[in-house]
């Protein structure tokens, strides 16, 4: 009996379909240089800039399409609406990987759907490498910290601090760890937790130890093996935070400072200060898309986020990118060693991801 007749037609259809496009994952839209949708506004300053942008944003349709992985975005959206009533913010919220995938796919199909991007540094760098972003130019730059500027096609709007958090019932006063190397001690066995996807934390600490502390790579590997022998692996930072509050383990080796601060504010027995060194700072940024549908509204949003919006970012217990935010207290205590991932390590994402996976599973790291 012929088994194939029915699916043959279907298969032919699928082949036709597959033939319509090139490779689904490769290729980018080339952006023609000189074709700058923001040219009319970039050099303006002060009230003239705001007025021109607002008028142009209204005539564009009075909306801005934003893709974001910022979980506190609603506060920014509300703040922007108060500042500019009549300009609607359509926010697509997803995790950073999804935001990246979506924007890449849409641009590959030549159907860009968003004007602004608000997500993590890794994803912004990936988008920038595809020439999908347009560097921000405006007066707001002057007020930003040095680390927030000159990053290519994007600008940092806030920093996340990866810290070591602990349960204050489980870790008594005086027993608090001071340095990441302390956790190799067997007394922590079964009391530590790491998140299964936090390879970027691993990459940061590893390069900090080798590049800043002068540790040899094999010593750093040994240290991590000892730490890994003490850890429980969890999936998801929220579950990790909740289990830490509940006392299921004593220490979470990589949590956001704002997660711990929010829980402590509600009364949970958790703390991260005095900070275990080093505190890892990761920039999260805002970026203008190279092919926006609403360029004026996009620029208006970015101007606002980098100035007035900084107060809202500070209120959500994150670290703003602006040098000076009135009434704001830096959460990381002065004098704490902070570290940001070095440029060389940033590009080796596959290497770090594989190494972290292998470390947790306890397989010999052969490379």
């Amino acid at each position, binding site marked *: *009996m*012929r*088994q194939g*007749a*029915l*699916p*043959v*037609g279907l298969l032919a*259809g*699928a082949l036709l379909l597959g033939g319509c496009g090139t*490779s*689904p*994952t*490769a290729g980018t839209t080339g952006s023609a240089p000189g074709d700058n949708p923001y040219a009319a506004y970039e050099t303006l300053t002060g009230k003239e800039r705001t007025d021109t942008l607002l008028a142009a944003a209204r005539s564009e349709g009075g909306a801005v399409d934003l893709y974001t992985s910022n*979980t*506190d975005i*609603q506060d920014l959206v509300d703040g922007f609406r108060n500042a500019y009533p009549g300009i609607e913010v*359509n*926010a*697509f919220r*997803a*995790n950073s*990987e*999804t935001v*990246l*995938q979506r924007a890449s*796919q*849409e641009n*590959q*199909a030549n*159907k860009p759907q968003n004007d602004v991007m608000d997500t993590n540094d890794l*994803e912004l760098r*990936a988008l920038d490498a595809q020439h999908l972003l347009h560097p921000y130019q405006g007066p707001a730059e002057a007020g930003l910290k040095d680390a927030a500027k000159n990053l290519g096609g994007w600008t940092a709007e806030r920093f996340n601090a990866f810290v070591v958090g602990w349960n204050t019932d489980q870790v008594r006063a005086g027993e608090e760890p001071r340095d990441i190397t302390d956790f190799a001690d067997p007394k922590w066995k079964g009391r530590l937790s790491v998140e*299964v*996807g936090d*390879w970027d934390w691993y990459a940061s600490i590893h390069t900090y130890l080798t590049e800043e502390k002068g540790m040899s790579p094999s010593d750093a590997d040994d240290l991590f093996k000892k730490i890994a022998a003490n850890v*429980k*692996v*969890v*999936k*998801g*930072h*929220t*579950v990790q935070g*909740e289990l830490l*509050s*509940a*006392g*299921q383990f004593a220490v979470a080796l990589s949590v956001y400072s704002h*997660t711990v601060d*929010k*829980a402590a504010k*509600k009364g*949970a027995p958790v703390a991260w200060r005095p900070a275990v060194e080093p505190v890892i700072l990761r920039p999260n940024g805002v970026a203008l898309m190279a092919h926006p549908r609403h360029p004026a509204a996009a620029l208006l949003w970015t101007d606002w986020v980098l100035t007035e919006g900084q107060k809202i970012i500070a209120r959500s217990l994150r670290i703003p990118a602006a040098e000076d935010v009135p009434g704001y207290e830096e959460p990381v205590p002065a004098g704490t060693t902070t570290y940001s991932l070095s440029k060389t390590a940033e590009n080796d*994402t*596959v290497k770090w*991801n594989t190494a972290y996976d292998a470390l*947790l599973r306890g397989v010999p*790291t*052969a490379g």
Partner: protein
Amino acid sequence: MTLASTSTTSRDDDPASRPGPAPRPGENKPVDRLLRLLRRPLSFQGLLVGVAVVVVGYLALVPLGYLVHDTFLGSGGSGVSLDAFARAYGGNSQAGQMLLNSLWFAVGSAALALTLGTALAYVQVRTDTPFKGLFFAASLVPLIVPGILYSTSWIFLGDPSTGLLNSLLFKPLFGSSPINIYSVWGMIWVQGLHLAPVTFLLMVAAFRAMDPSLEESAAMSGASRLTVLRRITVPLLRPAMISAALLMFVQSLESFEVPGLLGLQNGIYVFTSRIYFVLRAYPIDYGAAGAYAIGLLVIAAMGVLLSGWLQRSSRNFQTVGGKAFRPRPVELGRARPYVGAGVILYFLVTVILPVGVLVYASLLKYYTAPTSKTLGRLTLDNYRAVFTMPLAFTALKNSLIVGIGAATAVMFLAAIVAWVVLRTKAPGRRVLDLLAFTPIVIPGLVLGLALSFVYLRMPLPIYGTLLILLISYCTRYLPYGMRYASSAMAQMSPELEESAAVSGASWFQTFRRVLLPLMSGGILAGWVYILVVSFRELSSTILLYSPGKEVLSVLIWEQFENGQFTTLAALGVCMVALLVLLVSVAYRLGARFGLQSDSAN
């Protein structure tokens, strides 16, 4: 009274009764009918069947084509290569060890779910057990609670040091803490309970379509209860049981919620943790992700072929024939209180304990074990937060539209395609069956990417609308719909269709007036399942939804990402309440349209 009965011979491996209708002069009737349909492609019936087959094939082939393309062609597009498989399975991936863990976990979960679900369905449909009302909740609530919440509830219950079962029950009473949820057995327990409703729904439909007179005859002939169960009941239900086992086995293989939350703590890695890793990295190695999915596909395909082979003598299972039967409950007699107690216990363990923990957590600011101090500080703040979410109403509306739409569309398509697969000898029907099963192994993210790739390039306005979510859900739940529909159809003898045809009914009339009503139990069960699970589908949704088109699972994800576990618990509790309500309405409506109910028994 229901129209139905049996023409079953208990066991019959006689080659004369192979698939298809009895060898009579009209042997090739359904084939002829299909051919007639295809020869008249512009007739309504021909169009209906043709369109259904094409749509199902299209739904399944889009993500499969995308997956195969990425796996074998590589991103360079330079010819066919198997590099992706080397990256996925070679090196220090420990793929073998992890596959073994996965198989152990999947087999254990499927076996537990199959046993529990079947036993519950039997007690529900065929006995005069007390507390039938509780079954309804016990059978569905674990399915409704999102996996992440169900697993976390069990962590709070079964953690070896602080779990409530250990600290409040075993420690004071027996002086030990025997329960450790972070073990393979813990994982099997949670996954098995979470999946048992899949079996329960399928088996309730199957038991209702089964004539008890066979069992009665056996009992009269002196067979013991156990023999009746072993020789009559179980063999007759084989299509439904195989379908359930297959669905749950493959679903356990490809899920990462329970292994991710429970297994990792003790270093128990499963196969899907590899996929999780690959999809988290950038640039994503789609080839490797595809190679893993194809590995799962091979296992699933073997499952489908095996189930086809086990059902090869399909006449053996046709319990719905031309004669009428009246299902009569087995009187439990002295066993009744014990069965009743068992029902209560099951309800307690699968519903009250985990949902109770969720309700308790939803009333807290942060989770702590209950003490007199925490009990005095309970607050409704989290519920207030849920109801004041700006998108709550939009999301609820959209979830209802997409969920009901997908459930209806899938069950309609599946009913027609199941007919083609089981009732005709159309060439390629096995391949069609297999094809309709493939979406179950496609990772949600890959499905999302495949759909956005296609619809971004299509001139039709589908991308960015609710329609693309509907297409995605129809694809994801097609395998479930197919299993529910085909196990219902496998129980029906073709003589009913033949009688209808002889009496002059057109194909469509037969389908609508005879087949669909008789299959309604299975169809409704599949519909309920798809509706419930579509409310929590996230992995493809998150890529495909658009601002203003949010669904509930996006809100759940947002709370989850934002670290608001207690708010998430409140949202979960609201969802359970809402879906229980929806499903009871569906069953009430089903009863009005002739679906038999057991409540009177």
